[in-house]
Structure formats: structure tokens, C-alpha cells
């Protein structure tokens, strides 16, 4: 089954481009460490999932590129074409002349409805190219105007037009100290709207990825391209073909469906965090070896202690002893020590993957009491190595990972809203104060739900 990627705004298009790069580079990787037959099966699945065939033989990404101004899309299209390995369908993009001005209301209430037909036509065309459509993967940031506002609108349209397909939104959270002054408003508006139409939100925080670039990848002068490449690597490690059950012969045919089934048991809980280890610069990779027990142990502690990367993990944090009453609701003003999960998915790729023991993740103490731990945890093992990493482990987690970051964003937005600053810029395009209040209420509800796990 195939996945159609919808890239929205500057961030969405820049990241989307790196994702296809990562997938293509993995596709051609000669370090698969598995049998030829296995590798071919992997490549077949990867191709069907992300690319359509063209007469020239160069795979064409199953993607729709959307932006309200032309510069980024034209750059993205030409960079992909120059790579020689893959390209975009040059018809499959929608562009206007003037951007959304970092204004969510402009993206959602003005550009969205105005261009709905043109955009949905493009999406329909891509969907029709798929033999079987698993669903949609949208890439956007929530700080700006197009990715956030237009993205929220397009997601709604996708939900209306394709009620049976899955929709996964990859959302980039901006740096805390600001890329856009009204980013907190745009974030609150985006998240509350996405929650209604999306199946799950897969979140990447710029601050966290930046630290990975600085400390793990050792990059001195970090550019957005570096950040985007790390994100692309993480996404690739989740979306590339996997075996979803023990002893499976074929690769999973429904990537998005399997993901949702494993991770989103309840519609109130849709926020997914992603961790991927190991992560390092290519130079260091050549000289490093890993053991599965070591990787699993680190990954589990990253989950429990809510660490964003494999350095600086707080090993003091322990799961609460089972049998004791659940302590008071995690108070938001204190830093939560233990990260309670609803559901977790571990994806393992590479050498000796069948022998890996992931029992540590099945511990009932990690999970909230209202789910059976058997149902709450899944593991997908694939012998084919990913992107030159002999062993790699990814964790997709529906847990309190994003509780504090979300609380920060809502807090700052509320603070600004109380003074009514910038609100006139939104009411100008039809988003009134009541709309803001509705969104704040919706997110406070989400925060409350996650806090009470």
C-alpha cells in the first residue's frame, strides 16, 4: 500500500525533500546486511510505498507540494531533479505568489478555501496513482502561516474527502526562543484543529533536534539542512518497510494503519514522540559498534526519563513500584519525573534483530492503568539494516513526552492572549477571540488528559 506525502509551507517542503532523500539513499544502500532476496523484497515494498514508476525509470515521489509563495518549491523541485536518483512530479505542486505572512488565519480562512479545489485535485491525482492507498503523511511546521494554517485546513479536507484513509501529521515545533513572534498563537490554533481531523500527530521539536546536531553529530555551524536531515533520518527509520509480526514473511502492507493500531487506542491521545538511536556523524559511525542490550536499555531509559537523545539521560528515574496506588496527578508545575505511557512501538532494524529481548518495555509499570500492557506495547523487527547503521532502534511513543512542551506553548500563548497583543492581525482574517478561546480549551483538555495518566 502506498503513502501520499503532502508537504506544506517552507518547513514542510524542505523536510519532505530530505525525507525522500533519506529513503532513496537507504533504498540504494549496499550495507543492508541481509540476503539478496530480503533486500529485493525491501526495495520492492519501499518503492511501492513512496514512489510511482515513470517511463524514464527515475522514481517519482508520491508527493504533493504546497506553498503560498514560489521560492521554496522551485528550489525543492530542482534539487530533487538534480539528484538523479528520484524526483518529484513537476505537475504535482501548488503555489501562489504571496505567502501567508506567518498568519494562521490567513492560511486557514483565506488561502485554504480559495485554493481548496486546485489542491484537492492534485491530491486526488496522486491518490489515483496508488494501487492501494494506505493514507496521507503531511509535513508542516506549526509556527508559520502556510504549514500551520493551510496545513490545518488541508488536513480537514483530506479527512472529508478520504474518510477511510489514515492521516498522520508530522508537525515541527519551533525553537522555544522564537523563530516567529506569533508562533505560540499559530501553534495553539494548529494543534487544536489538527486534533479533530488527524489520526495522530508525530512531533519533532527544533530545540531537541538542534541538540542532537550539536552533541551527537558534532556539527559546528548547524544549518536548517542539518536539522532537517536528522528529522528525515528519524522518519525514515519509522516509515521504511518493516515486518510487523514475529515470523512474518512479507513486509507490512499497511504502514499507517499498523502505526495507528499500535499507538492510538483512544482519540483523546494523539500526540506521538519519536526517538531514534544510535545517531551520530558518518565519520564516527565507521568506528562504532553497538550491542542490542545496550541500545534497548538506553532506549527504555530515554522513554522513562523523557530524554530527547541518548546523551544526558537521567538514570535516577525509575518506574513506580507496581501494586502501590498511583500517585497524585502529575503536577504540571513540577518537572514530571517519570514518563507514563499509553502505548509504545519499538522498531528494530539490522543485524541479529530476531534475538533481541525487549521485555523491559512490557513492564506494566511503564503504562497507564487502563490499558493491558500486552496491548500497549508492540515491536517490529526487520533484518534489513537502515541507512548504514548496522543496528538501529526507533521508539514511537504515545506518552507524556510532549506534556511539558505543550504546556509551555499553551502558557506563553495564553499570556500573550491575555494582553490581546496581535489579536487584531487574526480578526482581520476572520479568526475571532471566541475561536481562540475554543482552541485554548481544547488544548487544556488534552493537557489534562495526558497529565492524569
Amino acid at each position, binding site marked *: 500500500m502506498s503513502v501520499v506525502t503532502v508537504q506544506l509551507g517552507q518547513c514542510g517542503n524542505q523536510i519532505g525533500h530530505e525525507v525522500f532523500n533519506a529513503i532513496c539513499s537507504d533504498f540504494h544502500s549496499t550495507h543492508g546486511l541481509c540476503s539478496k532476496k530480503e533486500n529485493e523484497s525491501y526495495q520492492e515494498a519501499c518503492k511501492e510505498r513512496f514512489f510511482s514508476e515513470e517511463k524514464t525509470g527515475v522514481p517519482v515521489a508520491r508527493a504533493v507540494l504546497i506553498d503560498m509563495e514560489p521560492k521554496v518549491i522551485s528550489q525543492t523541485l530542482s534539487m530533487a531533479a538534480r539528484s538523479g536518483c528520484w524526483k518529484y512530479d513537476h505537475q504535482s505542486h501548488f503555489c501562489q*505568489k504571496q505567502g501567508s505572512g506567518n498568519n494562521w488565519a490567513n492560511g486557514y480562512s483565506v488561502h485554504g478555501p480559495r485554493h481548496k479545489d486546485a489542491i484537492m485535485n492534485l491530491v486526488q491525482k496522486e491518490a489515483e496513482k496508488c494501487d492501494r492507498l494506505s493514507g496521507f503523511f503531511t509535513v508542516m511546521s506549526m509556527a508559520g502561516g502556510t504549514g500551520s494554517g493551510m496545513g490545518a485546513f488541508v488536513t480537514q479536507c483530506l479527512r472529508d474527502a478520504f474518510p477511510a484513509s489514515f492521516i498522520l501529521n508530522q508537525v515541527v515545533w519551533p525553537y522555544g526562543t522564537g523563530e516567529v513572534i506569533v508562533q505560540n498563537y499559530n501553534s495553539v490554533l494548529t494543534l487544536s484543529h489538527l486534533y479533530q481531523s488527524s489520526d495522530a500527530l508525530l512531533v519533532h521539536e527544533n530545540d531537541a533536534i538542534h541538540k542532537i546536531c550539536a552533541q551527537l553529530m558534532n556539527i559546528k555551524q548547524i544549518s536548517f539542512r542539518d536539522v532537517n536531515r536528522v528529522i528525515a533520518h528519524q522518519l525514515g527509520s519509522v516509515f521504511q518497510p518493516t515486518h510487523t509480526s514475529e515470523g512474518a514473511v512479507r513486509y507490512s502492507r499497511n504502514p499507517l494503519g499498523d502505526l495507528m493500531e499500535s499507538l492510538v487506542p483512544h482519540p483523546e491521545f494523539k500526540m506521538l514522540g519519536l526517538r531514534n538511536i544510535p545517531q551520530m556523524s558518518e565519520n564516527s559511525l565507521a568506528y562504532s559498534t553497538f550491542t542490542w542490550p545496550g541500545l534497548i536499555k538506553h532506549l527504555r531509559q530515554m522513554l522513562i526519563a523523557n530524554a530527547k537523545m541518548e546523551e544526558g539521560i537521567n538514570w535516577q528515574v525509575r518506574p513506580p513500584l507496581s501494586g502501590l496506588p498511583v500517585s497524585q496527578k502529575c503536577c504540571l508545575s513540577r518537572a514530571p519525573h517519570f514518563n507514563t505511557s499509553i502505548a509504545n512501538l519499538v522498531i528494530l532494524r539490522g543485524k541479529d534483530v530476531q534475538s533481541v529481548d525487549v521485555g523491559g518495555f512490557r513492564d506494566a509499570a511503564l503504562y497507564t492503568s487502563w490499558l493491558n500492557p500486552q496491548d500497549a506495547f508492540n515491536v517490529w523487527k526487520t533484518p534489513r539494516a537502515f541507512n548504514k547503521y548496522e543496528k538501529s532502534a526507533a521508539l514511537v511513543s504515545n506518552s507524556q513526552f510532549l506534556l511539558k512542551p505543550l504546556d509551555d506553548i499553551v502558557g506563553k500563548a495564553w499570556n500573550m492572549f491575555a494582553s490581546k497583543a496581535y489579536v487584531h492581525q487574526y480578526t482581520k482574517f476572520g479568526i475571532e477571540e471566541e475561536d481562540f478561546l475554543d482552541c485554548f480549551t481544547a488544548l487544556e483538555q488534552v493537557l489534562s488528559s495526558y497529565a492524569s495518566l
Partner: protein
Amino acid sequence: MTQSVVVQVGQCGNQIGCRFWDLALREHAAVNQKGIYDEALSSFFRNVDTRTDGDGIDIYKGKICSLKARALLIDMEEGVVNEILQGPLRDVFDSKQLITDVSGSGNNWAVGHKLYGCQYWENIVEKLRRTAEHCDCLQCFFVIHSMGGGTGSGLGTFVLNVLEDEFPEVYRFVTSVYPSGEDDVVTSPYNSVLAMKELNEHADCVLPIENESLFNIVSKIHQMTNSGKLGSTVKQNSLITSSAGGIRTDQAKPFDAMNNIVANLLLNLTSSARFEGSLNMDLNEISMNLVPFPQLHYLVSSLTPLYTLADVNVPSRRLDQMFSDAFSKDHQLIQADPKHSLYLACALLVRGNVQVSDLRRNIERLKPSLQFVSWNQEGWKTGLCSVPPVGHSHSLLALANNTCVKPTFMELKDRFMKLYKKKAHLHHYLHVDGMEQSCFSEAISSLTDLIEEYNQLDVSKGGPRTDPPRLKIAM
């Protein structure tokens, strides 16, 4: 890609405008090696086939034929505009973009605004409409004028009104040169305050400029380049005050260096809209992020570096110095010290080989020494444009919505009141048809209200931070 139109009004406006067009051509020539008419060029220039009669047919692609500035030149005296039309930039303008008269406005806002405004209204509207028709997607009008005189101040603000009426969806960015204390035009306080009311009500963003600041920057550079120590190693065309490499090869005029600074301001402001980068900052984003309340749209600007040394290696220490300088009061284009006042919002637009980590590092470093309003503690708007300005490897434009503009406005008010109390020169204004005493009282009232808004914000500075209580959800 969008287009912008420059409306230059009055002597000051046209002189700055002239420098702007010269430096814009220089910048595009440096980037656009192949002579193809690209989208970046189209934001300020039309590509015209001049062989045909009339307006010339626009050529949208392919080689550059003849570039015409998207501009309207307005002056009620002929001197400055004529000079432009006889100079090396004459081919960039055509006669249909001009509105001139002979006798000037006599440093009288009322003459500029009421008399000439009325007289030339139709002409202005028609010419604006024609310029707009040549634009595929018109995003912004840049009005350049001075506040102290008659034409720039009076007719300039009249045009601002027209822009709002005829093109309500298009942004209006106004670059206003404010008179200094020792201004030799006696009535400049009247003209400025009358113009301020119009800026308050009809501009989206105002970039106030003071000659004194420009002059100090020019002196500083002069000192650096002539001190002997750095003189020989400074790249001449990197000076923020330099016209080197432009079309003009004749004698530089006295105000050229100062006007070049303002021209560079406009180029840097629009750079991310014209050229690509990893984090684009368009003009509509500037207004969105820097104007928290409609009245408070006065942005203090600073440009760094003022010059580049010829050595190629730029250690990051120098990069960091560039960021520090942007916040020092010597680099601001008005007499103001943003560091000791309250920030409502701040935007940093970086050009050249600077990455997001450099930006983050410097924001973290400088943040503690700056005071931000309580509801916008982390209010930074950032942009990264890959194309540096001519002669530099990187540069920074900082735009601040900061209460440090208040002193400028308060002084203006004081000077106004000194004259107004004695009713000095008032009759020159009241003579003009359509001008009444109420115009004056409304104008000073508008200015007073604005100053009061800044006062309210300053009062909150440094006070205890109490966050508003969050919504409580029933479970």
C-alpha cells in the same frame, strides 16, 4: 513572487530614492550574472521592450532588455527630479512615472497636503493604478519622504491616504526622515506633527530615521577608513555608505553617504522576499510579527556591519560582534537606545553565510541584557537569507518595536508646543483652503495619545511578573 512599488516624495524622498535604485541595480548585477530577467529582479523592476511606443511591453522572461523601476517620483519643485532624469539613472525611469510642479511647497505641510493634494489627486491615482497594473501580485508600497518639509511631509502623507483608499490590501511601509533639533526649517515641528497623525492612522509600518544618527554613522566610518590603521584593508564597496560599483560615476553629493544607509536599509528589508534562504522572511511577516497593536507600528532599525575588512576569514567572534553591534545605540538609525528601553518585539534578518546555530547562540547571549514586555518574553522573529549584500559575506538588519522611540516623539511634541503656544507662523497654514485650527489640535492629540501608549508600556517594565491564570478544565 510579489512586487513592490516605491513612491518617493519631495526632495529628501527623491534623493534617498535615487540612491536606492542605484544600489538595487548594483545588488542585482552582482547576483544575476547571466543577465536573465528573473523573479528577484521583477520585485522592483519591469523588463520592458522599449522599441515600441507608449508604455513599453513588459517582457516577463528571458534576457534583460530594459529595466524600469517600479516607482513614482513626486516633487513640487523640479530640481531634484530633473537631476535624476539627466543623470545616469535616467533610463530606469520614464516620464509617465513623474509628477512635478515648479514652485515647491514652501516648507508648508498644508500646501503639500491640502493644496497640491487636491490639485494632483487624479493624476496620482491614475499613475499609481498604472504602476499597479504592471504588477502581477503587488504586495507593498514603500513611501520615502521627510517629515520636516512641505512636499515630502504634506503631499507624501496625502499619497499615503490615497494608497489606503485605492489599494487597501497592499501594505504601506513608510520610511520617514525626522528633523533634528537644529533643523533650519523653523516650521518643521508643525509639519512633522501634522504628518505624524497621518502615519499613525494610515501606515502599516513606519521606519523613522534621524539625520543625526546617519551623520554619526558616516563620521564613524570616515574615522575608521582614514585612521590609517584599518584604512587600507576595508573593502570600499562594503561600506554601508558607499556608492562604489553603482551606476553613478560623477561627483558624490554631500548627502549621498547618509542616503546610502537608508537605501541599504530598504534593500536588506526586502532581501529575503527577493532571494532564497533557509528561513524566509517576507514583508507581510514583518508587519504581522512586529505590530502587536495597530497604533504601535514604529520600528527602530539598525544595520551591521558598517563595513567589511578585506581579509576573507571571518571568525565567529566577528560574527558575534555583528550581533552585539546591532543592539548598540551607535548603530540605530534614530537617536535611541533600545537596550535601556522596553522591547515589544524584535526581528533579525540575517544575510549571507550565517546558519541557524549562529543565530540561536547570539540570541541566547544577548537576551539577558534586553528587556522584553511581559507578554512577549521570547518574542524574536528571525530570517535567514542566503544572498549577502554587495561587498559583505554576511550582514544583519535588526528591527525593533521598542519604547525607545518615545523620546523622539516627545521632543517633537515639545518643539511643536513651543511654536503653537505663541501661534507662530500659524497663519501661513490656516490660509490654505481646507486647513483649520482643528487640524492642529487633532494632530497634537494623536501624538499625545501615542506617547501615552508607550508610557503605559514603560510603566509595566521591570514590574513583578504575574502570569494570568490558566483555564481550568472540569474532568
